[in-house]
């Protein structure tokens, strides 16, 4: 995926054997926070939710805040939230803000066809 084409943000939720996976794509910034929260409002009642950021091309502090609020809300209900960010530039946002402990390895994320994120 090239970020020079308008990287439209999308959220796709699917159920796996023992978890729910929210696949995010495109630029995740302040303008997309409301959409992110709306898309996950009704479907995050699973015990384990994985937020897959592999195809996200940009993450800003507002997006990070939204993900943290989601995690906190779910944690208060005894539910687990994981964040999968395999690319260095994605992990950077978590590193700078001291949140790398929230990242998962992404093991067990079954993948269908997807665009390679060009580094």
């Amino acid at each position, binding site marked *: *995926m*090239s*970020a*020079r084409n*308008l990287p439209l*943000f999308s959220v796709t939720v699917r159920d796996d054997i023992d978890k729910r996976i929210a696949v995010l794509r495109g*630029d995740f*910034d*302040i*303008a*997309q926070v409301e959409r992110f929260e709306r898309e996950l409002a009704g479907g995050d009642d699973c015990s384990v939710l994985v937020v897959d950021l592999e195809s996200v*091309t*940009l*993450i*800003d*502090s*507002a997006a*990070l*805040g939204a993900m*943290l*609020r989601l995690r906190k809300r779910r944690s208060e209900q005894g539910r687990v939230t994981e964040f999968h960010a395999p*690319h*260095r*530039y*994605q992990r*950077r*946002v978590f590193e*700078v*803000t*001291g*949140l790398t402990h929230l990242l998962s390895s992404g093991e067990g994320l079954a993948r269908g066809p997807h665009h390679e*994120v*060009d*580094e």
Partner: protein
Amino acid sequence: MSAKSTDPDVTIDLPADIRFIPVVRHMLRQAFPPLGTGDDSVYFGAVTEILANAVASHHDRLHLPISIDVDVHDDPRITVSDQGSGFDVERTGSGPFDEGRGNGLRLARSACPNLTIHSSSAGTIVELPFTPSHGS
């Protein structure tokens, strides 16, 4: 308000509304040489943080635009000028992530170490030099 002595290659007026940030970012990406996704994410992530801060600073003056100067030839850079009430440029989150407490500026400075900020009660000017490698 600009401290520059030469006119930018292009100036974009951003309405004080976050919904326009993605579109403006897309336009800015087209103005510069293409970067790999990593470097693109880092640099334009910093730009996004600054634009979001500028929009937030206009909360009580929504009718005033935020000015974005774009220089693509000599000394390429993006300069964001707002007409907010200014802030303490030294106030950058340094501890754990704390919503609404300088996290955006912290990320922007990390991504673009040479960015400069001039802020006063008349507004804020942030210059983000564009360099091909931003340490993805």
